[in-house]
């Protein structure tokens, strides 16, 4: 195997979803003229994940609309895109990554390898998941003609899937092991409201219950056994059990990989090695701890910070960005800005239509939730304690 010399070696971005793509493009817009390699293990051109569980799954958008700009734009920017190509190892001391049986040297490395869906291993066979474009293609096919659907996992993804599936007329049951529905830190706080929303649309939600076993039936369906002794019959079972950070390929280099790639407040994991997006656990100076966020907006903002750091060097001032996420379920748009650590309390804010709820801790608003709040959600930014966007 040959190795490129470190001098003049490219900036290598491993992971070609929103975080990796944004780093690559931002490096150029920050004035970087070095070669940039963008490596993606999926065969598809870079695409965004949020529409997959919403418009694409529902059939409202063709897949192409989820793409994040094509190969031409990248080529015009002088970004070398390699799809269907996984990085299999890192040699930090040698400043090189292994890919396709070759070592490639890098001047800077950005890890943006995201998550893989946590699989549900059942004796009955493979259970569908919902993370990639390929997953959605399979699901769309399997949903046709599926009258009874069981969604294992009641987090954001499971809820969105339930909403889309229920709209297609299927009988949906969500099985959630924790005692409340999940929505990141908001789960326990909004659970009652979310439960009511799903039940209003005919979706059954089983809380505090897990799956013990499942078997296929002769007609291709499933019999799913639950921890409370009951059994569900389904045509389709989908697992929405969160994701596992793709960090195995980084092992053996002394990086902290306990929960994603641990980084400082600006995304640096080691000199010349950065991580962004779902895989990255950044130190949050406002919270005083590391945290791994799985939000599209955080991925983008982290990517901007890292691109700037690579081009302009470390910045002494850390501009904390406030996490924002949204979820579309049925006819409800849920928006959330900030943090919702307990203990605290909800304070209702005047809102012309829909609802705005502020989360107060020690007399300070740390987060705001909008429930079909529309334009009024903008006031949320001025209410939340730390609201500076990356400058």
């Amino acid at each position, binding site marked *: 195997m040959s190795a490129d010399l470190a001098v003049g070696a490219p900036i290598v971005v491993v992971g070609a979803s929103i975080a990796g793509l944004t780093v690559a493009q931002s490096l150029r817009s920050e004035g970087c003229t070095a070669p940039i390699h963008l490596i993606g293990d999926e065969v598809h051109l870079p695409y965004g994940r949020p529409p997959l569980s919403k418009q694409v799954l529902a059939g409202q958008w063709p897949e192409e609309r989820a793409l994040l700009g094509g190969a031409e734009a990248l080529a015009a920017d002088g970004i070398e895109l390699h799809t269907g190509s996984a990085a299999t190892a890192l040699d930090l001391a040698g400043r090189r990554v292994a890919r396709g049986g070759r070592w490639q040297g890098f001047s800077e490395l950005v890890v943006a390898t995201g998550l893989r869906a946590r699989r549900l291993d059942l004796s009955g066979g493979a259970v569908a998941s919902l993370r990639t474009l390929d997953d959605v293609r399979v699901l769309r096919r399997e949903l046709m003609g599926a009258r009874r659907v069981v969604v294992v996992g009641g987090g954001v993804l499971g809820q969105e899937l339930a909403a889309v599936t229920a709209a297609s007329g299927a009988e949906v049951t969500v099985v959630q092991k924790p005692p409340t529905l999940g929505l990141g830190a908001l789960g326990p706080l909004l659970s009652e409201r979310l439960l009511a929303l799903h039940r209003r649309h005919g979706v059954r939600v089983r809380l505090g219950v897990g799956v013990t076993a499942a078997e296929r039936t002769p007609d291709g369906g499933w019999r799913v056994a639950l921890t409370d002794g009951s059994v569900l019959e389904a045509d389709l079972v989908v697992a929405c059990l969160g994701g596992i950070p793709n960090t195995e390929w980084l092992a053996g280099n002394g990086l902290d990989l306990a929960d994603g790639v641990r980084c400082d407040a600006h995304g640096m994991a080691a000199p010349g090695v950065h991580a962004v997006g779902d895989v990255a656990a950044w130190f949050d100076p406002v919270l005083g701890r590391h945290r791994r966020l799985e939000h599209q907006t955080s991925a983008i903002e982290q990517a901007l910070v890292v691109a700037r750091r690579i081009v302009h060097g470390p910045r002494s001032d850390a501009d904390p960005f406030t996490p924002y996420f949204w979820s579309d379920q049925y006819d409800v748009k849920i928006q959330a800005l900030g943090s919702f650590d307990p203990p605290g309390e909800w304070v209702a804010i005047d809102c012309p239509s829909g609802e705005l709820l502020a989360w107060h801790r020690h007399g300070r608003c740390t987060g705001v939730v909008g429930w079909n709040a*529309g*334009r009024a959600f903008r006031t949320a930014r001025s209410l939340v304690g730390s609201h500076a966007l990356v400058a």
Partner: protein
Amino acid sequence: MQIEVDTEACVGAGQCALVAGEVFDQDDDGIVEVLTHVPDPADESAVRRAATLCPARAITVVEN
């Protein structure tokens, strides 16, 4: 520079209105409204940031 927005893709995050308030606003539902499709040169860099920050990639900037 010219701006195009995909109002169907817009998710109402409001990042655009925050970083380039002279160019972007939101309607009552939170969906993006373009105040001027040909922004002032002084606002161009803010518009590019808005396009990058948009979580839905609903903003297209056409550089002339």
